């Protein structure tokens, strides 16, 4: 393939890659999108040599004045868009960039036109980087890099070829450059090398950015159930929404846990009869151990148990500034400037994040103490009884039911279990609870409808426990369900939103009780689901390794490297110490015995060792230089001349005319001429060619080499004829 055609194709592919990224990242008006796609398709087909009835040709013949007018109009539209329509500089600017791209695609005449096109493509890629953090950017980027390497290389070759032709290169006829398969693969290898290098530089470049969150441009996900006041039934609205809310990785676990994983979001203490309210609204700023590491709990006892559960949470942009984690959260690490905690255990950011971000949570789940299990009654502190025994006006049926269910239970723990099992066993899980507003939805659930979902189950259990003077509260959050076996994390969706109960035990603290029946979906393993999980794990890795990559990650990598290299460094230090010890021992031995030595023998040994050392050094130097190619005694022309001369010598040897080492080539040629007259001319000309190629500065031309080949063939035929005649005789 010729350079010219390939160059145009690669230039258009370069701009197409950047445009593809922009299309995915920004909302481009449909007419503009169609026009741009059509322009790319037409110019690409034209560059590839397809006949399009001269469409591209006609468009490229549109006069400059018309294009200028169009550009001015486009600029006016862009300004209008900026001031009155989108009011977004980036979006207005990208639209104008696309118009510029269309203009340039049809006006690629001179070298500077191509340079402008590359600049436009780069600005488009830049705009894409500012508009998105999605994983597809990786594919666009790789494609752009590949196209950029091809384009820059072909741009260079084309320019050099043109300059070469203009200069005429002293009358040498210049064949057009063609691209061989070797060139194709070499260029791709260069692109691959550049990609590897890009990644290396990316990870090594020190991060000095001050952005705590990447600026997102999409709408945050609307959340329900995590505000200060939550109406009963709001979670049901999102139970069919598959939108991914977060991914939770448990780095210390190798697979999905056996039990349910609860991610606490908000906690509620007060029930009004139709809504749950968090009355403990006072929030305190959580203190930092060091920048970005927040100490939520000061319970040193818990840390000593070392049952810490570490979770790395990659959360999407939500409209609620709530942080989720396995209860009880002890420590949080993240790139947010501030963290707030309420008195009931909820964690909040100062403002809702505008884009996806990552944080790490360290939790120590509460476990029920054996003493709490066995105790028949507790003396609860007033701060608990004052808040977590509150009941709304209820009919006596609720307390009657509670007592009836717990009549055989002796301890608060057994009572809680009895109520849980009662709810699990006698009520049906359903999202279809009707739209009819009820005065007391819990009583409807308990006595009339007997169907509901997590909020109904949990609220009912809290109220029943409180009616038995057992402190309880309602917690909303998520129950991690879908395990991604490619990325080893839980994918948490809106439909995983959940509500459960926490019961207070004086020694153990708040213990989780979940009265909602388990609705564990069977793992979906259709090819589409598997591919979706694979893509999701790639998306997560992209976000963690690229988008969220920070100075702290660089420090962590360095720290790990230092730790892992510790054994190697220790071993090296030991080896050096041992070697030094051996040297010291030798020195002592030499010093103590040197007085008794025969100095002549010693001098002989030293001389022999020196000679050996010099020989080794010389050998090593020659070998090194030979490996580096510095010691190549002959030029390629000399080598070619030597090859055909050696072939001639071989043929003459078969005739019995071996070349004595004492004869110079011309002397040998004369000697051959004297003994084999028929071959005299051939040998003479071959010898002349050899002398010229081997000893003169003028290189042998291709004609010379082909002449030598022909003469050698003639010599071979002559040798065969001579042999046949000798055999005949």
């Amino acid at each position, binding site marked *: 393939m010729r350079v010219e055609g390939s160059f145009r194709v690669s230039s258009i592919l370069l701009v197409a890659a950047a445009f593809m990224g922009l299309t995915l990242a920004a909302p481009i008006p449909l007419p503009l999108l169609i026009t741009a796609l059509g322009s790319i398709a037409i110019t690409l087909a034209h560059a590839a040599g397809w006949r399009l009835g001269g469409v591209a040709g006609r468009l490229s013949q549109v006069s400059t004045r018309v294009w200028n007018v169009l550009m001015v109009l486009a600029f006016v539209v862009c300004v209008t868009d900026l001031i009155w329509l989108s009011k977004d500089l980036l979006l207005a600017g990208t639209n104008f960039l696309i118009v510029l791209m269309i203009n340039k695609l049809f006006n690629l005449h001179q070298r500077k036109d191509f340079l402008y096109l590359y600049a436009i493509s*780069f600005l488009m*890629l*830049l705009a894409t*980087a*500012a508009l998105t953090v999605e994983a597809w950017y990786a594919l666009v*980027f790789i494609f752009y*890099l590949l196209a*950029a*390497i091809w384009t*820059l*290389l072909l*741009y*260079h*070759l084309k320019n*050099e*070829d043109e*300059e*070469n032709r203009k*200069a*005429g*290169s*002293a*009358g*040498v006829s210049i064949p057009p*450059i063609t691209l061989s398969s070797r060139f194709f693969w070499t260029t791709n290898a*260069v692109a691959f*090398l*550049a990609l590897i*290098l*890009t*990644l*290396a*530089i*990316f990870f090594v*470049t020190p*991060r000095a*950015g*001050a*952005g*705590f969150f*990447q*600026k997102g441009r999409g709408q945050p996900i609307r959340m329900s159930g995590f505000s200060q006041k939550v109406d009963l039934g709001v979670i049901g609205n999102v139970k069919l929404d598959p939108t991914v809310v977060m991914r939770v990785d448990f780095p210390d676990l190798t697979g999905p846990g056996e039990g349910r994983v609860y991610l606490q979001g908000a906690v509620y203490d007060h029930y009004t009869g139709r809504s749950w309210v968090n009355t403990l609204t006072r929030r305190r700023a959580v203190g930092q151990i060091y920048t970005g590491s927040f100490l939520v709990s000061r319970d040193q006892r818990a840390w000593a148990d070392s049952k810490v559960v570490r979770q790395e949470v990659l959360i999407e942009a939500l409209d609620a500034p709530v942080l989720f984690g396995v209860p009880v959260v002890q420590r949080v690490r993240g790139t947010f400037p501030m963290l707030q905690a309420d008195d009931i255990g909820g964690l909040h950011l100062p403002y809702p994040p505008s884009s996806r971000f990552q944080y790490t949570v360290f939790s120590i789940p509460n476990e029920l103490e054996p003493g709490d299990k066995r105790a028949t009654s507790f003396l609860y502190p007033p701060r608990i009884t004052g808040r977590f025994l509150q009941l709304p006006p209820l009919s006596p049926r609720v307390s009657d039911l509670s007592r009836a269910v717990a009549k055989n239970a002796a301890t608060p723990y057994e009572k809680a279990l009895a109520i849980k099992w009662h709810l699990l066993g006698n009520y049906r899980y359903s999202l279809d609870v009707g739209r009819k507003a009820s005065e007391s939805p819990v009583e409807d659930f308990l006595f009339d409808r007997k169907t509901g979902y997590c909020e109904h189950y949990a609220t009912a259990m809290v109220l029943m426990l409180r009616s038995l003077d057992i402190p309880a509260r309602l917690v909303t959050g998520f129950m991690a369900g879908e395990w991604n076996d490619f990325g080893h994390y839980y994918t948490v969706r809106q439909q995983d939103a959940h509500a459960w109960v926490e019961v207070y035990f004086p020694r153990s603290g708040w213990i989780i009780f979940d009265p909602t029946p388990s609705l564990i979906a069977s793992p979906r393993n259709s090819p589409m689901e598997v591919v979706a999980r694979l893509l999701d794990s790639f998306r997560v890795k992209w976000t963690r390794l*690229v*988008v*969220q990559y920070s100075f702290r990650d660089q420090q962590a990598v360095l720290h790990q490297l230092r730790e892992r290299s510790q054994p190697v460094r220790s071993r090296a230090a030991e080896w050096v110490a041992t070697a030094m010890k051996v040297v010291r021992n030798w020195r002592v031995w030499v010093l103590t015995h040197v007085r008794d030595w025969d100095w002549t023998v010693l001098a002989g040994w030293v001389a022999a060792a020196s000679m050996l050392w010099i020989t080794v050094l010389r050998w090593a130097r020659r070998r090194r230089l030979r490996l580096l*190619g510095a010691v*190549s005694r002959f*030029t*390629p*022309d000399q080598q070619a001349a030597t090859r055909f001369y050696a072939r001639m010598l071989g043929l003459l040897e078969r005739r019995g005319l071996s070349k004595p080492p004492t004869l110079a080539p011309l002397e040998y040629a004369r000697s051959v*001429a*004297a003994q084999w*007259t028929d071959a*005299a001319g051939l040998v*003479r000309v071959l010898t*002349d060619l050899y002398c010229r190629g081997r000893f003169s*500065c*003028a*290189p042998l*031309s291709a004609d010379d080499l082909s002449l030598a080949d022909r003469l050698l063939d003639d010599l071979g035929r002559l040798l065969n004829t001579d042999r046949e005649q000798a055999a005949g005789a």
Partner: protein
Amino acid sequence: MRVSPIRRFFRWLYRNRSISLTPEGTRFVLLAAAIGLAAINTGNNLLYLLLAMMLSLIVVSGALSEQCLRRLYIQRRLPEHIFAGFPGTAYFSIANRKSRLPSFSIRILDVIDEQPIDRGVHVLHLAPESSALRSYPLLVARRGRFRIDGIKVLTRFPFSLFVKGLALSLPSEAIAYPPIKPLPDDIYDQIEGLGQDNPVPKRGPGVDLYNLRLYHPGDDSRAIHWRTTAKTSLLIIRETQAEDQHHITLAFPTALPAASGTSGVSAAGMEQSFETAVELTASLAAHFQEQGFAIRAIVGDQEVPGATGEEQLFRILRVLALCQPIPAPQADAGLGVFKSLLAQTPPHEMVLLILPWEDARLEACTAGVETVFRAHEVEATHAR
């Protein structure tokens, strides 16, 4: 200051290397700097990724251009004879000694007095273990010794962002002969028909056999004496005897006048006259060589003994190329040697005296000389 071994190693590795930015490269670097600033300012990792891409392109560009320049074996061949003011053809022989990697976009510049001079020599592609020959016109302005110190090999491969250079010492020296010009008509009229009929058996164009000798590379194959070649099994060449032979002495005194500049002629004017005289002598030598004369030349205090043929012409031209006016302290001695050499001319041999300037001492040499040319007169004729 102590230089670390690593730095010393890199200095050795990149000795004689130079690097500069092309206009495209300048824009590229500025853009990379802008992206870097934006990345630091925003903390956007995708901008860091773009920055890394641009930096990697710079690194790849450096590595590939270095590969292009490595293990190139370059030789220069100057033309055998160079005449001042007339273009000759010089050659570069470029061999790529790499076993696997080609070299692309190589430009070769001559370096004279540390100044690179672009000769337009360009090799777009040189396959591994192959060589190329590139010629270029070489024009030397002045006669005399001409020296090229080295070469500079440049490449913009692979992305035209940087020009990487490799300076190599490749000295070449040649002598630029004075230009040979057509003789003015008046001079031509004077020398036409000059000469003594005194044939001497000499090798040259003719019909009669002069000698048989062994074939040498470069001999005309039509001159092979086939009968003898067949007899002896050796390639034998037949040489012919020149049909006639004439003798002439070209005498060119170079001593400066006793008080140079006093005759109202500036130093520049005298230099111009001297050069005119040198060129005239060279042109006369070429003319008589074409006519088959045995030419003897006396240039200042140097003598080129009489002989015929092209070799003799170049011997004379070489002396003329290097001759300089003899300054006052040595002028008398030089003039004395000149006179003594002139006096040794055989009695029947024709003498042509070329005087570079008006000087009474030089005019004294004209006694007994049939034909005298004066440079200032020739200049005046040319001016007319």
